[in-house]
């Protein structure tokens, strides 16, 4: 038995009369009871607007909020608490960089380099910047196993490059991108590196120093925390020179009728009342992750991944995209198709067996086009999944073509 299941009540609820097999962890993870409790305790005992009040309740809320920031800082190995900005989700974090850095430090003809596999949230904001500033988007294309070759990286990152935006782990192929090598190359030409860690930090230790990232974005809800809280890490020297993004309460210093001066970091980038409950939920999620340990998480997931890929290899009429063997360093995200069956039908059929997978473009339409598919199915793992989950998934998958009147 998986020792963590008891902490996730939703995984024990029957779904369509069957036990839920939750394999859409790349979309969002389930939340352990300790996280729910942390949020509830806050609202039950010391809910107040932080930073604003001088009274005890507000002081406690402020302390808890700032401790959560400190915990995030420690968790990702940043230098200072000021480098941690709380946002709503990874998308907002990336938009913050695009608006506040991109629109202010890019010029006509500058290039933004990014893999074609990026999630729309690390792609569409750069289209906006490119359009506004007359900059150019230059794409990196992966090889057949989903990997970016050194050659591809070296040929695309040039002295014209001002920004390299790259996911640590692809949400479609599970590929671990060579962020450190990309950052080295980017820094050699004076570009800044924006790393989307939305899909890595739930499964992999993320250390901003080791990645040598200038900015790092991720979402709480993909790493056991509640929805509505995200993080942007930025090197202080960069954040310091960037203008505010959202403006309003809390992020100011002096406000006159016609102009304003702004608070120091991190408040400069946190306008309005922040999601203290969410930040405390994220802190509790970090505690839980630490307790489980990345070693256990990686070991569990890579075993399950191999088991799943082996099982899928034995079912005819299935195409897996990217690395199909689990041989390279990759995360437990598997995109695939069933011959002649639309991914939406696959997903509906699996759902009838209580198996939750995702079907569609996974917010990565340029990659879909590059892979020459319209959509794919995607099964994604987390440490609370079990071999039994995979068995049920495989059994259901075997029946798919039959449902639609094809031979197996």
């Amino acid at each position, binding site marked *: 038995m998986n020792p963590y299941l008891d902490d996730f009540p939703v995984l024990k609820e029957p779904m369509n009369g069957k036990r839920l097999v939750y394999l859409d962890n790349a979309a969002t993870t389930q939340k352990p009871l300790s996280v729910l409790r942390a949020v509830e305790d806050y609202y039950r005992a010391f809910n107040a607007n932080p930073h604003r009040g001088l009274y005890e309740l507000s002081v406690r809320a402020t302390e808890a909020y700032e401790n959560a920031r400190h915990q995030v800082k420690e968790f990702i190995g940043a230098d200072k608490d000021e480098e941690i900005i709380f946002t709503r989700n990874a998308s907002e974090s990336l938009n913050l960089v695009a608006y506040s850095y991109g629109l202010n430090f890019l010029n006509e003809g500058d290039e933004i380099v990014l893999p074609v596999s990026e999630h729309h949230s690390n792609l569409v904001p750069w289209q906006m910047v490119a359009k506004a500033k007359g900059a150019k988007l230059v794409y990196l294309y992966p090889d057949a196993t989903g990997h970016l070759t050194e050659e591809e990286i070296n040929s695309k990152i040039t002295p014209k490059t001002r920004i390299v935006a790259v996911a640590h782990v692809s949400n479609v192929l599970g590929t671990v991108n060579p962020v450190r090598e990309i950052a080295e190359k980017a820094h050699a030409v004076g570009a800044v590196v924006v790393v989307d860690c939305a899909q890595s930090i739930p499964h992999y230790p993320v250390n901003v120093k080791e990645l040598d990232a200038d900015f790092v974005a991720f979402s709480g809800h993909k790493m056991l925390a509640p929805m509505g809280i995200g993080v942007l890490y930025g090197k202080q020297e960069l954040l310091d020179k960037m203008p505010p993004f959202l403006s309003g309460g809390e992020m100011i210093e002096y406000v006159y009728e016609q102009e304003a001066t702004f608070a120091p970091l991190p408040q400069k980038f946190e306008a309005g009342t922040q999601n203290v409950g969410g930040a405390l939920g994220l802190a509790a999620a970090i505690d839980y992750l630490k307790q489980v340990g990345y070693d256990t998480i990686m070991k569990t997931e890579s075993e399950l991944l191999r088991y799943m890929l082996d099982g899928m290899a034995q079912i005819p009429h299935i195409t897996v995209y990217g690395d199909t063997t689990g041989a390279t360093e990759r995360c437990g995200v598997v995109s695939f198709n069933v011959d002649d069956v639309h991914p939406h*039908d696959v997903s*509906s059929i699996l759902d*009838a067996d209580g198996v939750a997978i995702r079907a*569609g*473009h996974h917010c990565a339409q340029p990659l879909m086009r590059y892979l020459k598919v319209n959509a794919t199915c995607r099964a994604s793992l987390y440490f609370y999944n079990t071999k039994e989950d995979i068995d049920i998934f495989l059994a259901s998958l075997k029946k798919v073509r039959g449902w639609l009147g094809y031979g197996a």
Partner: protein
Amino acid sequence: MGLEQIYSEILSEHNNSKRNKHHIDNPTTVLKGVNPSCGDEIELELRERDGVIEDAAFTGIGCAISQASTSIMIDLIKGKTKEEAIELSKLFFGMIKNEITDEDQLEPLDEAIALKDISHMPARVKCAVLAWHTLENAVEGEHAANHEH
């Protein structure tokens, strides 16, 4: 869920047979219908004469539900007047929204009744109605694909 009812023989037959999936001669209306959120895309071709839909067919890609729904619709509307086609589409939307449940009333929908239980699968409703929305737009002369779901 009634997956059995939905992925019934009729559906898989329509999905597999390419009977209505081709181009027609001299179409009077060609209209695209898309579901951006799931990537389904059909192109409906109609040839009308004196207010009657003489011939119809479609091309495009999509899931079994949208493909079968389109094919079944084409079987139904061929030889019907534009007004009759619009009546059928209203009946179809009524069935899918679970507003019309009376079997007798639904009778004119014939094979399309196989899609009744889609009303219990909200995520797939837009697959089932794509063809019918496109038909409405085609017949009523609107030239934009309908994005509603």
